C-alpha cells in the first residue's frame, strides 16, 4: 500500500503543543507510508487540495489525516479522497487535537502521543478495504413528536413540502407552552393571535395526521424505515362524535378538578376542553376526578352530550405508523421550584411561577385577564419578580441559564404596569440576558417607560409579615447592602428542564441526552438540528433552552432536514456493517441471538445452516463480531484484525 499522512497544525490549536513537523517526520518511517506532510489547515480548501494533489502525485491508495476529532471532519476528508479517486473508506483519522493538543501541555509527550496515534491509524488503514454502500427504499413520511410551536412549525413546513406528517401530542390540545402565554416579547403581541392560526392550519392540512392525547410507545427500525407504535390514551370521549360544543363541561359536577392548562391557578371540571382555541377542540375526561369513573355514579356528561360521544369504557389504543424520519420537539417543563424552602416551598399562595402569572394575565385564564392575588383576590400593588429560580443554581442541580426568563420577566413587568397603573414592579436579577433583536431595547423600556425597578442581586428568603404582605429579603449588590421589599405578589422566573419523559423517549429514539434530559445534537455548532441517529432531528427547547423565534427557526430547520432527506428516492446504507465469512461460520447462532436489530438471519448454504447479515438492517455496532467465537462475522472497517493492529501498534513487548 502507498499511504499519505497529513499532520494538521490547525493553526496553533495543534501546532502550539504538538511538534507537527516531527510527527510527520516520524510518520515517514511507518509501514507503507510514502508521503507525509504537516499543513497549517488541512480542512481548509488549500489543505484538501493538497491531499488530492498528493494522492495523484504519489499514487497514494490510502490517506491518514491527523487533526481534530473524526466526529467532526471524517466525512469531509472522506469526500476529499473520493474526489481524488480513492474509495472513501481508504481513509483514517488520528485525533491529535481534542485527544492530544487540547488536553496536554507537555510538548514532548504530546508529540510522541500524536505519532503513536498516527501509527495506530496507519496500521488500521493498511487493513482497510474499499467499501461500497447499498441503496434501499424509504418511507417518505415523518413523525413529529410534540405539538408545541416548534413541532407545529416543523409539521406545517414538512406538510407544505408535500411530506405526510404524523404529529403526536401528549396533551389533549396542541399549542404547547406558547398557547398558555398571554403576550410575547419584545412586541407584546397576543400569543393566541399569532399561534392560533398555525394551530388551525395543522388541523386542516391534508398532509397532517394529528394524534393528540397520545404518546410514542415504541420505535424500531432505522433511517428511512422506522416503525412507530403510538398509544392513543383513553379520553373517554369518542372524538369522532364530539363537536366541542362544551355542553358537558357546563354540567359536569366535579368542579374542583385541578386545571393543568391553567397551571393550577384555578379549578376546572372533570370533563374539560383545555381552552377555547384548543386544537383539536375535543373534550377529555380526567378519570381521577370524574365521579362516574372514580366512584361509578354520575353520568351527567353522557346524559347531556348531544351526540352521544361519551364512552366511559374507553381504553388506550395502540396504532402503528411507518415513517422515514422523526423530529423530536418535546419542549420543556418548569423545574420543581418547591425545593426552594426559603421561598416558602409552595406554602405561600401569593408566591407563584411566571407561567402561572401568564395565566393570570391571560383573558382566557381563571381571572379573565385581571391580575388578582390567589390568596385574597386583591389587586397587588407591589409585585416582586425574582429571576433565576432554578437557573444558574448549582445548589439545586440547575447550573444552566434558561435563556428566556430575563425577557419574559421584563414583559410581565410591563404588562403589570399596563394592568395596574399604580403598581410598582421590582425585579431581582443577576445579569440581564437580552441578546436578541430588539430585546435589550425592550428591557430598557421596562425600566425607562414602565418604571420597573431592577435590583441586582438574589433573594435570600421570602416570608409573610403576618399582616397580608410578604417580606422579600434580597440584596442590592450595586448598593452593597441587603434590601427588604414588602410585596403583595411574588413571581418566580422558574428555570426550565427537559419535559417529563424526555430521557425515556431518547432511549426509544436511541439518541443521547445530557444530564438534565435535553437531547444531544450531533454537533453543538455545526449540526444543531441533527442527532447522532440518522433520520432523527430536533426542534425547539427539547435540545436546549431557546425562545419562540429560535424554536420556530429550529422547527423549520428540522423540516428542511426532513425534506432534504426525502428529496432522494433511495438512501444509501452505511457499508460499515457486519459480514459473514460463510466458510468459517458454524451456525452456532450466537450472533442471531444477540443482534439488537434482528439484522442476522439463518440461511441454508449447500445443506448447511449459515448466518447472513441483512445489509440494510445492520447498524454496524459489531456486537456480533465480539460474540462470534470463531471470528466468522466481521464488522467491516472495525474488523478484529484492524483493532488488533491498533493494539499491536501499542503493545508489543
Amino acid at each position: 500500500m502507498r499511504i499519505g499522512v497529513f499532520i494538521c497544525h490547525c493553526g496553533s490549536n495543534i501546532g502550539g503543543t504538538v511538534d507537527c513537523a516531527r510527527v510527520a517526520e516520524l510518520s515517514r518511517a511507518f509501514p507503507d507510508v510514502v508521503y507525509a506532510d504537516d499543513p497549517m489547515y488541512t480542512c481548509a480548501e488549500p489543505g484538501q487540495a493538497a491531499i488530492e494533489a498528493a494522492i495523484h502525485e504519489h499514487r497514494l491508495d490510502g490517506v491518514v489525516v491527523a487533526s481534530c476529532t473524526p466526529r467532526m471532519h471524517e466525512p469531509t476528508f472522506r469526500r476529499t479522497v473520493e474526489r481524488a479517486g480513492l474509495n472513501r473508506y481508504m481513509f483514517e483519522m488520528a485525533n491529535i487535537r481534542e485527544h492530544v493538543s487540547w488536553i496536554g501541555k507537555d510538548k514532548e509527550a504530546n508529540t510522541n502521543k500524536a505519532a503513536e496515534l498516527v501509527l495506530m491509524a496507519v496500521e488500521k488503514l493498511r487493513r482497510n478495504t474499499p467499501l461500497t454502500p447499498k441503496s434501499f427504499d424509504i418511507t417518505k413520511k415523518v413523525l413529529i413528536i410534540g405539538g408545541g410551536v416548534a413541532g407545529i412549525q416543523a409539521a406545517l413546513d414538512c406538510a407544505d413540502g408535500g411530506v405526510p406528517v404524523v404529529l403526536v401530542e401528549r396533551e389533549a390540545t396542541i399549542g404547547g407552552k406558547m398557547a398558555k402565554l398571554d403576550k410575547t416579547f419584545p412586541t407584546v403581541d397576543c400569543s393566541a393571535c399569532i399561534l392560533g392560526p398555525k394551530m388551525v392550519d395543522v388541523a386542516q392540512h391534508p398532509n397532517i395526521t394529528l394524534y393528540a392525547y397520545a404518546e410514542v410507545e415504541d420505535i424500531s427500525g432505522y433511517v428511512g424505515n422506522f416503525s412507530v407504535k403510538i398509544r392513543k390514551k383513553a379520553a373517554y370521549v369518542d372524538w369522532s362524535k364530539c363537536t366541542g360544543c362544551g355542553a358537558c363541561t357546563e354540567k359536569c359536577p366535579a368542579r374542583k378538578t385541578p386545571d393543568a392548562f391553567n397551571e393550577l391557578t384555578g379549578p376546572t371540571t372533570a370533563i374539560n376542553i383545555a381552552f377555547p382555541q384548543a386544537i383539536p377542540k375535543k373534550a377529555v375526561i380526567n378519570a381521577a376526578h370524574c365521579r362516574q369513573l372514580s366512584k361509578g355514579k354520575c353520568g351527567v356528561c353522557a346524559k347531556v352530550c348531544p351526540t352521544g360521544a361519551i364512552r366511559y369504557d374507553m381504553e388506550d389504543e395502540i396504532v402503528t405508523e411507518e415513517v422515514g424520519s422523526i423530529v423530536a420537539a418535546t419542549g420543556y417543563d418548569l423545574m420543581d421550584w418547591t425545593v426552594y424552602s426559603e421561598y416558602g416551598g409552595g406554602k405561600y399562595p401569593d408566591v407563584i411561577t411566571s407561567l402561572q402569572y401568564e395565566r393570570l394575565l391571560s383573558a382566557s385564564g381563571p381571572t379573565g385577564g385581571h391580575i388578582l392575588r390567589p390568596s385574597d383576590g386583591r389587586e397587588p400593588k407591589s409585585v416582586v419578580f425574582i429571576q433565576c429560580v432554578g437557573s444558574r443554581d448549582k445548589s439545586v442541580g440547575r447550573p444552566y441559564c434558561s435563556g428566556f426568563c430575563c425577557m419574559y420577566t421584563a414583559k410581565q413587568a410591563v404588562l403589570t404596569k399596563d394592568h395596574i397603573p399604580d403598581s410598582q414592579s421590582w425585579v431581582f436579577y443577576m445579569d440581564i440576558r437580552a441578546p436578541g433583536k430588539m430585546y435589550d431595547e425592550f428591557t430598557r423600556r421596562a425600566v425607562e417607560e414602565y418604571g420597573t425597578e431592577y435590583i441586582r442581586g438574589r433573594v435570600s428568603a421570602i416570608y409573610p409579615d403576618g399582616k397580608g404582605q410578604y417580606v422579600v429579603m434580597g440584596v442590592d449588590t450595586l448598593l452593597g447592602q441587603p434590601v427588604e421589599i414588602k410585596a403583595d405578589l411574588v413571581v418566580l422566573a422558574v428555570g426550565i428542564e427537559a419535559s417529563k419523559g424526555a430521557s425515556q423517549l431518547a432511549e426509544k429514539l436511541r439518541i443521547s441526552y445530557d444530564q438534565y434530559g435535553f437531547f444531544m445534537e450531533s454537533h453543538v455548532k455545526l449540526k444543531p438540528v441533527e442527532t447522532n441517529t440518522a433520520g432523527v432531528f430536533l426542534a425547539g427547547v427539547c435540545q436546549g433552552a431557546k425562545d419562540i423565534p429560535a424554536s420556530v427557526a429550529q422547527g423549520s430547520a428540522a423540516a428542511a432536514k426532513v425534506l432534504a432527506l426525502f428529496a432522494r428516492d433511495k438512501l444509501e446504507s452505511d457499508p460499515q456493517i457486519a459480514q459473514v465469512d460463510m466458510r468459517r461460520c458454524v451456525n452456532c447462532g450466537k450472533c442471531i441471538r444477540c443482534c439488537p436489530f434482528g439484522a442476522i438471519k439463518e440461511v441454508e448454504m449447500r445443506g448447511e445452516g449459515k448466518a447472513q447479515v441483512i445489509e440494510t438492517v445492520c447498524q454496524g455496532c459489531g456486537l456480533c463480531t465480539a460474540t462470534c467465537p470463531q471470528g466468522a462475522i466481521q464488522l467491516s472497517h472495525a474488523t478484529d484484525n484492524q483493532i488488533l493492529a491498533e493494539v499491536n501498534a501499542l503493545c508489543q513487548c
Partner: protein
Amino acid sequence: MNKVTDISSLRDPAFTAAVQADSGQDVTTCYQCGNCTAGCPASFAYDRQVSQIMRGVQLGLKDEVLNTRSIWMCLSCSTCSLRCPNNIDVAAVMETLRHMARKEGRVTVPKVEKFWFSFLDTVRVFGRTYEIGTMALYMLRSLRIFTDLDLAPEALKKRKLGLIPHAIPRQDVPDDGARAVGRIMQRYRQRALREGVRP
C-alpha cells in the same frame, strides 16, 4: 470607602489559595449574586458585606479582607452557606478568615475576642462554663462594667445565673475532670506557640 484600589499590585493569589485550602471551598465558583448578604442577620453590623468579602478573597485582597470588622461580627449561623447557589460554605470561609486574622494578630474587634477568651478561661479553670465568671472576666478585659447590668435583677431573681461555679464534680472522674480540660487548653496553647501562631 472612596479610595481607588490598585488591584494589580495588591492582588495576592497565595492568600486566595490559602483560604481555599483551609476552608475547603472553591471561591472561584462565586458569581457575586449576593445571596449571602441578602440573608445575613449580621449584615447591619458589617463594614464590608459578606459578598464583598468573598469578592475580596477572589481578588486576593488580603488586608482588605482580614482587617474587616465583619469577620468578627459573623454569627456563624450558616444562613449564607445554606442559600448559596454555588454550594459554597461561606460561613466556613468566614471562619477561616477569622482564624487567619487571629493567628496573624489582627483583631479588628477586640471585644469579641475578649469575650471568647473570658469564656474559655472559665472552661480552662472549671472544665465547664461559669456564666458569672465569664461576665466578670469580660468586664475586666473590656473595661465595660455596664454590660447587661439591666438584666441582672431579672437574671438573679430567676436564678438564671449560678453564683457558684459548677465545675466538673471531682467524684465523677478518677482524674480531676477540670484539670484534664485545663491540660487540653494548655497543650493547645503550647502547640500554637510552637507553630508560631497566636493561640
